[in-house]
């Protein structure tokens, strides 16, 4: 009877495909111009949890056929949102393809939870009329 060789101490387990997909999806989405933040409500929220990992703003769930459905929950600027969602999908699909996980990626649902509108900045007091700078003390003009 052959004995199994002693195993090396277990290194930290690599993240699962599900967690990798979650990270790739939210990181790619946040790079798209028009996306501001993942949606982080005060209570609850949408996240993907793995072993010691917590990825906010994205849900990744297994579907039949070994693929994962991705759901992104985003806060965006006031821009046309369907087009923005398509750009997010393009970016996520590209990142997932480069990571070699394209065959695991299912549909990407994008939910816009809130908008951020840049508020007009408060009116600043006008600068005083331009006048020649005061000479340094002790400076003597010719």
């Amino acid at each position, binding site marked *: 009877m052959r004995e199994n060789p002693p195993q090396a101490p277990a290194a930290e387990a690599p993240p699962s495909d599900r967690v990798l997909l979650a990270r790739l999806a939210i990181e790619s989405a946040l790079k798209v111009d028009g996306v501001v933040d993942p949606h982080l409500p005060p209570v609850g929220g949408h996240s993907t949890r793995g072993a010691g990992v917590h990825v906010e703003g994205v849900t990744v769930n297994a579907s039949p056929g070994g693929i994962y459905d991705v759901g992104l929950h985003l806060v965006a600027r006031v821009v046309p949102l369907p087009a923005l969602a398509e750009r997010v999908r393009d970016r996520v699909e590209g990142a997932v393809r480069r990571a070699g996980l394209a065959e695991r990626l299912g549909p990407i649902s994008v*939910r816009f939870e809130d908008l951020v*509108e840049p508020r007009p900045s408060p009116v600043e007091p006008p600068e005083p009329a331009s006048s020649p700078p005061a000479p340094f003390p002790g400076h003597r003009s010719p």
Partner: protein
Amino acid sequence: MTEESSAAGTEVARGGGASGGNAPLQSGRGTTTIADAVVSKVAGIAAREVPGVYNMGGGAARAVGGFTSRIGFGDDRTQGVGVEVGEREAAVDLTLVIEYGESIPQVSNAVRDNVAKRIEGITGLSVTEVNITVNDLYFPGDEQTEEEPPPPPRVS
């Protein structure tokens, strides 16, 4: 003073919606959904863009909204806005304060058009109706009376 306009419930749906960049809300690549808060915010911003709209919401909502926005909570842009959002369509209820002297029907129609245009353009949802209640009129000077400094003391 409170006046109710009869400008409620006009159908404003145009085309098939999904005009936000010509991208569909549902495709084989996944669905795009829009939360109620997004539609409320777009509607509130769009309504305030129309000249003649002074404020939004009922008296209590304006008082509470003014207080909460001063202390940094709440969002006065969704004040006076109620929405119902489906997968492809949205319906909007607005409560407005209009400046005295403006034509309420004209302002209401302009608000209705602008709100529908903005929601369809930004969210891709088709707007089925925009119901408007004119809750109050604003007279210029109303705010000054609220912010007048207290009278000087009569005795030293």
